[in-house]
């Protein structure tokens, strides 16, 4: 009898997850439908209007989708040259040694810093530097936000990649060394091909992180609702427009913001699922 109750509890708690997941999609869709009905789904996605003036209201998600994709892509580009070396450092060169553990801890702590503190640091320290270097006229903008995003996702990409680099069988590497290969050649010809799909999935998951990052971006991107023209200009991402305007929106605007939320949810969900499927495969090679 007690066993039955226990098993029922187990199943019940597991059912909660699909309920939450389904609930999110359902609730967002219901509340977003106002915007989709008014403008049409594709028109909403591909329109770059964001006119909040009463009577002339017209909303489109394109500037924010662009902002999100742009910052994420830039952050990814900037994070690769750092996360790969870190992964090699901890997973290959100094595998199992104290210094690798130290760097590993540093990376873990970097991952632990709350995003609002990254934002503060970016705003008070980096912004001035960016203006001084004339990388951006007003300090904040796409470039600044992407740069800090890159720092934020390095830990995710690096620690997962290291895990896969560590998994490459020693016999394979030793075989290559025995044939006279240098370390660099072993890394290029043995480790990368073997761990490649795992490393790839690590970066996909890092993308998933960058897509939805809110506070840091809101503090650094400049919060303007136009299509970003260059990387030096300001913009808004899907997450930051919600953070900025959700608090006082109602009616059509609220519905439009929720619609953007739904799109963001779907994009991150797809990216994450792809990443997870790849990772599960890579782990069971």
């Amino acid at each position, binding site marked *: 009898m007690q066993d039955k109750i226990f098993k029922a509890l187990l199943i019940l708690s597991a059912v909660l997850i699909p309920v939450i997941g389904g609930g999110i999609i359902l609730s967002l869709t219901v509340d977003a439908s106002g915007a989709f009905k008014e403008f049409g789904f594709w028109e909403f996605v591909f329109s770059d209007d*964001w*006119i*909040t*003036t*009463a*009577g002339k209201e017209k909303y489109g998600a394109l500037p924010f989708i662009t902002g999100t994709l742009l910052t994420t892509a830039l952050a990814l580009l900037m994070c690769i040259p750092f996360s790969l070396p870190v992964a090699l450092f901890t997973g290959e060169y100094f595998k199992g040694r104290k210094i690798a553990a130290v760097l590993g801890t540093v990376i873990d702590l970097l991952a632990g810093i709350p995003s609002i503190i990254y934002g503060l640091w970016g*705003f*008070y320290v980096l*912004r001035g530097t960016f*203006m001084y270097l004339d990388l951006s*006229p*007003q*300090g*904040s*903008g796409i470039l600044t936000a992407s740069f800090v995003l890159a720092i934020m996702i390095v830990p995710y990409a690096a620690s997962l990649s290291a895990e896969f680099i560590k998994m490459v069988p020693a016999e394979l590497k030793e075989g290559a060394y025995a044939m006279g290969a240098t370390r660099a050649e072993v890394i290029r010809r043995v480790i990368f091909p073997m761990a490649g799909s795992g490393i790839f999935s690590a970066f996909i998951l890092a993308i998933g992180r960058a897509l939805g990052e809110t506070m840091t971006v809101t503090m650094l991107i*400049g*919060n*303007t*609702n*136009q299509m970003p023209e260059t990387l030096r200009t*300001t913009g808004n991402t899907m997450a930051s427009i919600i953070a*900025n*305007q959700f*608090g*006082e*929106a*109602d009616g059509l605007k609220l519905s439009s913001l929720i619609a953007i939320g739904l799109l963001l949810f779907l994009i991150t969900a797809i990216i994450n699922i792809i990443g997870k499927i790849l990772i599960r495969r890579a782990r069971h090679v």
Partner: protein
Amino acid sequence: MKKFCLPLIAGAMALSFAACGGSGSAGSVELSGAGATFPLPFYNMSFEGYDAATGNKVSYGGIGSGGGVRNLKDEIVDFAGSDAFLTDEEMKDMKPVVHIPTCMGAVVLAYNLPDVVKLNLSGDVIADIYAGKITKWNDARLAELNPDVKLPAKDIIVAYRSDGSGTTFIFTDYLSKVSENWKNTYGAGKTVDFPVGQAAKGNPGVAGIIAQTPYSFGYIGSEYAFAQKIPYASVKNSRGELITPSTESISAAAGDIPQDTRCSITNADAEGAYPISCFTWLLIYQEQHYGDRSMEQAKATVDLMKYMLADSVQQKTATVNYAPLPKKAIELSLQNLKTVTYDGQPILK
């Protein structure tokens, strides 16, 4: 492991029970409001005074005028604060609302220019800076207004509000009055699609950007600029006088006030008037019995409005960098308060 966890949980639970016991202090009424950030310091000060005088607690969240009106619509607050009066269209969507002005303020144009201590502006120049037509500090039209100042050859970094804001409304209302181009292209509203610049949340957010960014320029509530000692510009009024915002020049802008006090006093045609001056209002429903509100709550709400109009409160406006209401506005508002009812019965006898 377990040994460590149990006392922790027990302790925390005891804490939360103690917490529940402490919250329900009986007797006094708790009022809640939300809205404009512009008069926040004034409201904090006055609501504390009201608490001391009556024992009624008032909480007020500075979430922006737009948010305040939305909360009033959702009937989750007793009153809303707004720097913009409700338009006729907005009024149509809602149950009857009474506007109670509480003080006067101004929107100032703050700037961050190293070595520049005095800046003069005119309405059309401001409009063109915000329209992206004037982009450099050393633009000829700026130089003409400021013959004695050496303006740098740098880009103007424009800042504006990202949230729905009464401050934005007052500012763009002014721009629409002085610039035909602004009126036709962008118009006035709580949020406007500014073509240039970067946005920040709340008056403080914009003030923060300006304080932190050399060569920046933006509109903020006067009280933040005064308190933060952020430099602000003098602006040409409709009579061609260059006016520095101050308590006196703001008061000078109050002209004719209609019965419901809903009026814009930007670009006022009066001597010595700062042209971007404004009232700020508290909004309450005329019929106070909505949701599960009690008679006591309704009474306290009206009482609070009356308190805000009292001389003792109005005299203190200047200590927090606002200007007091003109007598006419107080008279009209006291009349309007008499129309507020609970179940159809007037609350003030």
